[in-house]
């Protein structure tokens, strides 16, 4: 039974190692958890979440903290995998010192872990989940980015009125967010008089789009609408160019707004249209303070999603202040009652379903740079 001995000794070691991990309950701090894809396909976004939240917490603590207490952060890497997000949710809710959770990045991750936060009664504040079914799903779930129900009419209007496009082919990533996004674009585009002549999807992780692009091209659309994240969009654009297909316009949702799109996609993404509710070159003083601060700390320009994460932590701190307590229920109520909070990404007022309604501006990639269109 030597092998069993080894097993038991190892178990004892693990137990010992783990008792040290027990939660440290320091009454002078407020413990916040962050779930984000620090590694994996969406590492770019997750790292920016972490940076923005850490930057925000440092600012808040430097100004005296919230209710006289310093903010303390625990970070969990969800790798963009809903299963990991669920694991992290279980981990956070089993720690009684954690007041609220910020995250995750993708709607899929947020929706997968939602039942756990709901069961335990912990705030789940997502900076970027734009799926229409996310925030309404639980009274503990909040999202500040604005849902696709409000973003896509803007894109549809751009397509029909400004660009005068009659037909569009749609390529979307087949997950919760992609399906939701393309649904709203489709509805609004056709409502405005256009016609979606072809729709194709792909699964996360797919890298070979030549066949699917060829199929879309066969329907002869005026434009191509790509509902996906910037990394996939870069690959798609390059393969589209290789096929020699240059439609009148290429459009996509706000997920594409990132300097990485241009870095990865190069020339192939020139002329691409998207929309944002945050623009790094906006001359507004607070935005510039954030951008310069971020650049000084991390040597990188923040994108839309980074700004949303920054807004999240400040909004949460504000809600705690308004609640006047660190009781989970009270903070939740204060958060839900948020009216006209001036975030960098626009004014935040939560609807009864805990979504925020934002306003959007059109951007276009011109000569390797995003520019605001009037």
């Amino acid at each position: 039974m030597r092998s069993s001995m080894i097993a038991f000794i190892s178990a004892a070691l693990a137990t010992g190692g783990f008792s040290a991990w027990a939660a440290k309950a320091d009454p002078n701090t407020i413990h916040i958890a962050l779930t984000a894809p620090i590694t994996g396909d969406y590492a770019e976004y997750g790292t920016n979440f972490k940076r923005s939240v850490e930057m925000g917490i440092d600012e808040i603590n430097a100004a005296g903290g919230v209710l006289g207490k310093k903010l303390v952060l625990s970070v969990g890497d969800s790798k963009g995998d809903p299963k990991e997000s669920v694991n992290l949710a279980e981990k956070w809710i089993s720690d009684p010192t954690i007041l609220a959770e910020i995250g995750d990045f993708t709607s899929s991750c947020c929706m997968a872990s939602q039942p756990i936060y709901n069961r335990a009664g912990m705030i789940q504040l997502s900076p970027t989940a734009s799926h229409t079914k996310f925030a309404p799903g639980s009274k503990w779930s909040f999202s500040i980015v604005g849902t696709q129900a409000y973003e896509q009419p803007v894109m549809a209007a751009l397509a029909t009125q400004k660009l005068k496009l009659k037909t569009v082919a749609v390529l979307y990533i087949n997950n919760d967010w992609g399906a939701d996004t393309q649904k709203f674009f489709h509805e609004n585009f056709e409502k405005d008089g256009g016609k979606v002549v072809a729709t194709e999807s792909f699964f996360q992780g797919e890298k070979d789009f030549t066949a699917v692009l060829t199929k879309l091209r066969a329907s002869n659309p005026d434009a191509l609408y790509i509902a996906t994240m910037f990394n996939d969009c870069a690959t798609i654009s390059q393969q589209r160019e290789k096929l020699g297909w240059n439609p009148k316009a290429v459009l996509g949702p706000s997920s594409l707004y990132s300097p990485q799109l241009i870095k990865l996609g190069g020339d192939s993404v020139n002329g691409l249209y998207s929309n944002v509710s945050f623009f790094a070159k906006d001359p507004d003083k607070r935005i510039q303070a954030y951008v310069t601060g971020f650049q000084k700390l991390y040597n990188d320009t923040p994108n839309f999603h980074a700004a949303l994460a920054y807004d999240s932590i400040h909004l949460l701190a504000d809600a705690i202040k308004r609640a006047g307590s660190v009781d989970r229920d009270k903070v939740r109520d204060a958060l839900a009652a948020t009216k006209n909070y001036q975030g960098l990404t626009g004014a935040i007022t939560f609807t009864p379903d805990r979504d925020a309604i934002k306003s959007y501006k059109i951007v276009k990639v011109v000569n390797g740079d995003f520019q605001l269109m009037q």
Partner: protein
Amino acid sequence: MFLQQLINGLAQGSLFALIAISFSLVWGLLKMVNFALGEVYMLGAYAGWLVVAHVSPNLGVALVAGFAAGWAGGWIIEKVAFKAMRGVPHIASLVCTIGFSFFLKETATWMFGAETKGMPAFYSRTACTIASANVSWLQVIMVAIAVVMMVALQVLFYRTRIGLAVRTVAMDYRTASLMGMKVDKVTSLAFSLSGALAGFVGVLAAVYYNAIYPSMGFVAGLKGFTAAVFGGITSIPGAILGGYLLGCIENLSVQFVASGYRDFITYSILILFLLFRPNGILGKKTKL
């Protein structure tokens, strides 16, 4: 768009065909499969990427790097999974290569991260247009390189002494060793060559899809194996036929069936052929 999909299929088929040849080489010699060939392909892709990023943005240099990395990979796998396992039932070697497959993939994830890396856009402009179907220079070059490689292999196997040695050992391992041939060295060579080919294809694929990521080897390996079984794993012409046929079938199926089921068709072909015609299209209809 039938023609365009066909052209896409031929380009992709070149990749499948070369990987299938890699599998055929080892099978023909030892009646064994190197499960980790897909990961060797992935190693080659990363080697090419490293070279392009740090040494020289030249496709040729990248291809050589992939070839070399693949050669090294194949050599190591032969030594550990096959030579050290002489005398143990073959299944153990296969399981060892399964271990290698996972080991290599996880090592790449640990070393390079799971995010997809890109290659600079080589030769992406359109070469010519045939009746509304676009052929890019890259596709032309890929098919050309693949054909050159196949011809080179033919020359190697039928016009050189080394090739003769490989064919002899493939024909009858035991007799060859009894006749005093350095069977070990021939085996090592074949494995290394098989790996080198896989690594070479890895660079090609990295450029074609412009995507390099640790799990790229799994699907490529499985599809390459499918192509080999499909066309006939016992012969190189079989591997080539299987590769091109599979490439065309896959791309045409996207056109006419839902794109999500593309791989389903490929894997079904694999299972069906394993069950009913394991010698493939070109193989004799004997029990394998």
